[in-house]
């Protein structure tokens, strides 16, 4: 049985200014990644990235992206990710960089990693908070990526 295997790259978009994060959308990341792969690997890279490449999930509050690509070529696309310097969205240019956190074979494994990562983030960020309101807000936005609700979130974003 031929099974089409893919790899899901879990990336975090890091910006210097947190307010710009909400401007992101998946088309911007898609075009930026395709352009970077085309620049780094030429026509071959551009052709490969048109096969089975898509942005599966984007969380504008925390800046988490799932990129899906074929298992045979994911290294090539991954190697072009460091060269992305900015994202273009509706005429506005946001300087940022993508940090790849995890590579998984399925969305479920990436989600499991994401849950662990988010709990670590909570541990890091909560002590730095000044007020109780900030604390509860951070808790809410970070814990919104749980496994149970993931299907809902995905449907919302797509």
């Amino acid at each position, binding site marked *: 049985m031929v099974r089409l295997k893919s790899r899901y790259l879990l990336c975090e978009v890091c910006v210097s200014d947190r307010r710009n994060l909400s401007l992101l959308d998946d088309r911007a990341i898609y075009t930026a990644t395709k352009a970077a792969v085309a620049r780094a690997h030429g026509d071959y890279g551009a052709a490969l990235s048109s096969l089975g490449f898509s942005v599966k999930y984007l969380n504008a509050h925390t800046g988490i992206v799932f990129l899906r690509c074929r298992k045979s070529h994911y290294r090539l696309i991954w190697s072009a990710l460091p060269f992305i*310097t900015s994202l273009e969205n509706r005429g506005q240019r946001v300087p940022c960089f993508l940090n790849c956190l995890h590579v998984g074979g399925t969305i479920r494994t990436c989600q499991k990693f994401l849950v662990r990562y988010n709990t670590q983030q909570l541990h890091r960020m909560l002590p730095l908070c000044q007020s109780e309101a900030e604390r509860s807000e951070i808790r809410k936005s970070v814990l919104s990526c749980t496994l149970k609700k993931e299907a809902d979130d995905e449907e919302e974003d797509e």
Partner: protein
Amino acid sequence: MAVFMDLNITYTTDKKRLRSVIETAAHLGYSTVAINYVVDLQQKKQEIGKPKCVLELFDTFPIVQGKSRPIKVLNRLTVVASDPSHFRPNAEYKAYDLVAVYPTTEKLFHAACMTFDVDIICVAVIEKQPFFFKRSPINGAIERGVFFEISYTPAIRDSTMRRYTIANAISLMETCKGKNVIVTSGAEKPLELRGPYDIANLGLLFGLSEGDGKAAISTNCRAVHLHGETRKTALGIVHSMKSEQPLTERQEKEDVPASKRAKIEMAQ
């Protein structure tokens, strides 16, 4: 999860920017960074000043993502030289944790590999390599424990630099077979840093194998750090400790097994 290090953060007099770079590095998962002071000895007698005390930058160092320890900041000196006579003064070098040299001529490269008392030799990334790498000085450097550094930030900034970086890196790999290589950023802004797994993957572009790529940012960097520490000791036996350094460093030094200590003595 190994210990990742980024050993090249360009020193700027702007404290806020330096601070944000180090915070970003901690967020990305680097356990140790080194602030790089570049000195160009060709221009009329620049002095090698003392490095700024690291404690001035932060009251509390930012905690590394994924671990519970704060990030460690070292000082590093890079000497851009074209003449072997430039590289003699030894007194100020003791104040820095790491010493690097950027050779611009073939003769200096040979001398730096075989005789100079450095930890890192920088490979040119912003221009076409003016000389070819020969196998004999590189093998000599590998035996002594000197590492070759490739910096990746010029590749991110500009397309022509990218070509030079990749070309020079691949020619280095052909001669050294992937041993004793570290990959560092030369970041001046926090947006120029990249995560450690991304860099290990970039190593594939540079001709490193997968294991070598991961080693280039973790185990090799740690070896460089230890190499720099042994320079402060007299033949690896006596360890003088600065009062602001934490106690764990001395324990680390004493834990070095006897066989390694002997090798360090011979390398001196």
